[in-house]
């Protein structure tokens, strides 16, 4: 409202108003609260008109980061994915991957400060699918879809060097220790569980817990709650010795990428040409993704037992799904306290039963005031959310059952593998193992082809007799694994 309009609407002369303003504030407050009882939008103290022609300053409105920049970021993400796929599959360059990681860490991590990130975009998409009222930013959808689509064809190019979280952990890895295989498999379930929990929380409108507990974004921002900074620091310390712990044992987007990459069209291979089974790459992967050759042929002595076990697992999995689903549905009620509406309704009911004395301007007291405005509506809303949680509990429990069953089944299925090769799903496309392969060293000119001695004959590789397939000279010092299917 322009000052002139106020001037005509003024009820009292200025002097009266100022004198009133001089009475002690407490009295003024009491009087005004009485005045305010049936008040609508109105000035308690009409704005003055200045004789000296004072012009009112305008409230400043500093502009936010332009939305278009998010689309620029999306373009950079696409470019990064393309470069990463090319570097890992075609160019086969670890150095290139390191440079790309540094660039991503600098741009997506420390400059862009992590948010909104690809990992978090899962929740935006989940919420959008569950709640028609939520407006999904188009670039968030793009962030979610692009790395997965790329993974379906080229493996985890995103993890190779585009994801700032992965890059940060990868670049600080100095002395990888081997995680025992049983632990690797057990902890490898966590990302799938976290994914399920994160999607459930987002879809029920309870919040974005994947963002809330992200360990690295506070580091990128150099700001955040103390506990999260400690968590981030601890993860970073752990990353010095355990290869990418967040990626392997927590990252929910990594769980999606793992599934997509395990059916990818093209894959990362350690050797550029053929595997001589020299075993040089066996321990090269710091992320436990390297798999040994195996014949995949049935052993007649154990075949019956194996078949029985597999049948048992195939029967057990649906049982597990239903059983965990049921447990999930029972846990859904208490878990709904994660939702702010349910939490408020709950504290309202608790207050009704046993009143607590909160200081009047404390958040708790003010929340309860809001609850008392319309308790019936609040309780109805909370009941609706709780019902959603019970359905969600079924789904989440079933999902965990499915994950467990699939894990057991995959562990007991025989694989036919002729070469040492990265596991499609677990390989993060970091390109570290390439340089361990003597064939790769020949390709890159680090070893002259003549320096290679014929080892392929021992390995029983086809074509070796013709003398055309040299194996690594270094391999001579290592025991050569006879090819299991020779």
């Amino acid at each position, binding site marked *: *409202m322009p*000052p002139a309009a106020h001037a005509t609407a003024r009820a009292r002369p200025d002097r009266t108003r100022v004198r009133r*303003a*001089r009475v002690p*504030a*407490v009295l*003024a407050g009491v009087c005004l609260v009485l005045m*305010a009882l049936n008040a*609508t939008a109105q*000035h*308690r*103290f009409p*704005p003055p008109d*200045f*004789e000296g022609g*004072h012009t009112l300053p305008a*409230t400043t*409105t500093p502009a*936010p*980061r332009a*939305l278009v920049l998010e689309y620029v970021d999306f373009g950079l993400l696409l470019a990064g994915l393309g470069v990463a796929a090319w570097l890992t599959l*075609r*160019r086969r360059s670890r150095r290139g991957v390191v440079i790309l990681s540094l660039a991503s860490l600098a741009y997506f991590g420390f400059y862009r400060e992590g*948010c*909104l*990130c690809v990992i978090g975009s899962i929740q935006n998409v989940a919420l*959008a699918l569950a709640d028609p009222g939520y*407006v*999904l*930013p*188009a670039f968030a*959808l793009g962030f*979610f*879809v692009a790395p997965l*689509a790329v993974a*379906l064809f080229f493996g985890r190019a995103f993890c190779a060097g585009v994801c700032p979280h992965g890059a940060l952990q990868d670049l600080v890895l100095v002395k990888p220790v081997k995680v025992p295989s049983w632990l690797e498999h057990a902890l490898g379930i966590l990302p799938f569980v976290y994914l399920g929990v994160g999607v459930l929380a987002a879809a029920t409108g309870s919040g974005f817990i994947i*963002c809330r507990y992200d360990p690295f974004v506070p580091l990128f921002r150099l700001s955040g*709650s103390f506990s999260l900074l400690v968590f981030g620091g601890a993860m970073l310390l752990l990353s010095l010795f355990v290869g990418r712990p967040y990626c392997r044992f927590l990252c929910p987007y990594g769980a999606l990428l793992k599934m997509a990459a395990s*059916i990818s*069209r093209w894959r*990362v*291979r350690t050797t*550029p*040409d*053929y595997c001589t089974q020299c075993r040089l790459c066996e321990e090269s992967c710091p992320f436990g993704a390297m798999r040994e050759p195996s014949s995949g042929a049935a052993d007649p002595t154990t075949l019956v037992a194996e078949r029985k076990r597999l049948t048992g697992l195939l029967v057990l999995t649906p049982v597990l799904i239903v059983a965990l689903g049921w447990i999930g549905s029972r846990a859904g009620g208490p878990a709904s306290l994660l939702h*702010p509406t349910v939490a408020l309704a709950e504290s309202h009911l608790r207050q009704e039963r046993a009143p607590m004395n909160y200081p009047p*301007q404390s*958040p708790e007291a*003010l*929340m309860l005031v809001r609850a008392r405005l319309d308790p019936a509506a609040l309780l109805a809303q909370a009941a609706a959310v709780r019902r959603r949680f019970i359905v969600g509990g079924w789904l989440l429990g079933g999902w965990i059952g499915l994950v467990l069953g699939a894990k057991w089944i995959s562990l007991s299925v025989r694989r*036919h*593998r002729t070469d040492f090769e990265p596991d499609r799903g677990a390989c993060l496309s970091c390109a570290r193992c390439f340089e361990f392969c003597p*064939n790769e060293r*020949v*390709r890159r*000119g680090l070893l002259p*082809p003549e320096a290679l001695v014929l080892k392929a004959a021992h390995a029983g590789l086809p*074509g070796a007799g013709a003398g055309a*397939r*040299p194996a690594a000279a270094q391999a001579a010092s290592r025991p050569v694994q006879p090819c299991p299917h020779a």
Partner: protein
Amino acid sequence: MSSPENPKPPLAAGTLAEPTMNPTPSDSTPPVSRRQFLRDGLRAAGVAGLGGVAGLGAARTGAREYYWQIDPDKCVRCGRCATECVLQQSAVKCVHAYAICGYCELCTGYFNPEPNALNTGAENQLCPTSAIRRTFIEDPYYEYTIDEQLCIGCGKCVEGCSRFGNGSLYLQVRHDRCLNCNECAIARVCAGDAFRRVPVDQPYLLRTAPPAH
């Protein structure tokens, strides 16, 4: 990829590792090609599924509501804006709607309830960081301006002004500071449920008239 019948020397340095892009030699043996077939089928399903999610998601896209902002009419000055923001000094600051301000000599947003004297002495001020500047305009009017460098968004002045004054002081997310977190850390604990997403072309919820007291 070289086949057993057609051996090929290792690639020369710098050539593209063509074999990587091709099926592995083992793909020609029956169990693997069955697996390959399965994988192709699953990939087709994966592409279709992802396409479905993208399509459904696309129907819900828009940039209409994107930045976080505080609805000043819902804010109950609980104080969490000062403490819960992921930034060490909150992105929420007090702003002043000058057109609503009564220019009171005893500004209840500036002075604590029982001031010793109506001057700028720190002991008389409500603001814990002395972030409000009080400048004399003409007798008897003073203007109150927020120094955003000092304001921590605690809302004490807002409470004073809303309760006893015109409600011209109120809290807003300042977008030059706010990181637009995917989940605003204040929004999820806001006592008044005052945070919401606002359209890109209107990132502030400015007061142009006094609130209903």
